[in-house]
């Protein structure tokens, strides 16, 4: 896998700051084509930012982001919107259009980007809804759906145009065990059946590790480690071990930095 075309996304020397806070410091990440790649790390470490960088909703301070041979930050507005038609993204909230029903939500990308006749749009929409098990829910409005169903409808919408790259932003957050199982299965199934490349950003370790072919662990603006799930589970790096084993204290301290506890308690309010 050394050939550049084996990788659908390549982030090279990416630096991204938010105000004075450095989110990514000279980071390199490569996403292999046709695989499910997990990006893991503690909350607030910039995992979602990474997806937004790939989708060019944010621009890096320096570095290049190659998606299928195009340097995304250098594209003009029109080219960018054309490039995004080959990407699908599942947002944490689902982000369904609240004024459209389930059918129209899934039909939306087809209506705006294709000139397909109505009966063909209907067939494609039903096909995609069948894939996520919600063909029977086509007439419902988004506010009539449960959180898990919303995410599945959003998934059907994201794959409506048969993208080459699917990005999942925290797909397992706030899901009951059944919907979680459904989503885990769907992500793997769609990836293999449709020949997609999937990026799953998550901090749900077990679920992500169970479907990912390759994992990145990010934190402190760096890639802390990468490898197959088994390799990372057996890693010697204390940071990775703490994350993978879910230990409350370790290189990532339990306590937010503060002054000495005893001193703090002894201080009167006036001193503070």
């Amino acid at each position: 896998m050394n050939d550049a075309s084996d990788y659908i996304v390549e982030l090279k020397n990416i630096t991204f700051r938010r105000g004075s806070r450095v989110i990514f410091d000279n980071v390199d990440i490569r996403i292999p084509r046709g695989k499910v790649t997990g990006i893991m790390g503690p909350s607030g470490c910039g995992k979602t930012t990474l997806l937004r960088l790939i989708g060019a909703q944010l621009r890096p301070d320096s570095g290049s982001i190659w998606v299928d041979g195009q340097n995304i930050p250098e594209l003009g507005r029109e080219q960018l919107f054309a490039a995004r038609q080959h990407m699908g993204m599942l947002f944490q909230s689902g982000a369904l259009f609240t004024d459209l029903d389930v059918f129209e939500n899934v039909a939306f990308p087809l209506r705006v980007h294709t000139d397909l006749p109505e009966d063909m749009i209907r067939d494609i929409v039903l096909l995609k809804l069948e894939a996520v098990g919600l063909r029977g829910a086509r007439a419902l409005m988004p506010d009539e759906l449960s959180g898990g169903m919303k995410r599945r409808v959003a998934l059907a919408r994201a794959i409506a145009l048969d993208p080459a790259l699917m990005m999942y932003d925290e797909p397992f957050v706030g899901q009951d065990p059944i919907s979680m199982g459904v989503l885990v299965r769907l992500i793997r199934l769609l990836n293999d059946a449709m020949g997609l490349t999937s990026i799953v950003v998550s901090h749900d370790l077990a679920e992500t590790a169970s479907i990912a072919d390759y994992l990145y662990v990010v934190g402190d603006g760096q890639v802390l480690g990468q490898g197959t799930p088994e390799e990372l589970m057996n890693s010697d790096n204390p940071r990775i071990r703490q994350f993978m084993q879910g230990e409350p204290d370790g290189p990532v301290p339990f306590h937010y930095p503060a002054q000495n506890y005893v001193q703090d308690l002894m201080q009167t309010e006036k001193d503070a």
Partner: protein
Amino acid sequence: MSLVDRVVLLGRAGLDTLAALGRSGLFLVNVLFGRARFGNGWTLLVKQLHAVGVMSLAIIVVSGLFIGMVLALQGYNILVGYGSEQAVGQMVALTLLRELGPVVTALLFAGRAGSALTAEIGLMKATEQLSSMEMIGVDPLKYVIAPRLWAGFISMPLLAMVFCVVGIWGGAMVAVDWLGVYSGSYWSNMQNSVEFTEDVLNGLIKAVVFAFVVTWIAVFQGYDCEPTSEGISRATTRTVVYASLAVLGLDFILTALMF
């Protein structure tokens, strides 16, 4: 706070204001001159014309009626002292066409439609609907913002005209039917003194300018708001405050230039 801190804060506020002005200018250029790619642009526009224009009709008609009635009542009470109550029709028409029609319509429009536009767009931003639209490869500036902006431009001047017509009728109801001004003098005095270019057209120009400013502020505040519940509430307030101040300020400038 030291003097230096105050200067720093002042500088920061100035820079933020300039940056916001720059963003809003670029935003407007992108919305107005971006190439539309969607076949169903008319459907989107008609939907927004209904939401922004037709749905504002009730408040405009009722306000126009009462303002016309009050103008006639106040005008009559003053004019009757000089024995010139026959001129009440002319006074009502000129006041409405030149000033109150465009200005009050714009203020009501900012409160009724402008705040709704800001809140709707802000909520779409907060629930990631705008982001997901971008990721589907659809530019929200063209798909969400442009139809709303054009709907505002088109419907507000029409609403201002409706406001003036209803106001003149309201004035007639009070002056002619209630206070007994001779209906011939009410209408003929109005016809003799109201000029099409001087009064009607100038009023319409004002309405077009206000429509432009109010809708621009409303959609920009929604699009630029912080995507949280406080952010949306602040943006909605800003829309009404900025739009009202802009309308009143511009009204003075336009009046100075026109009359």
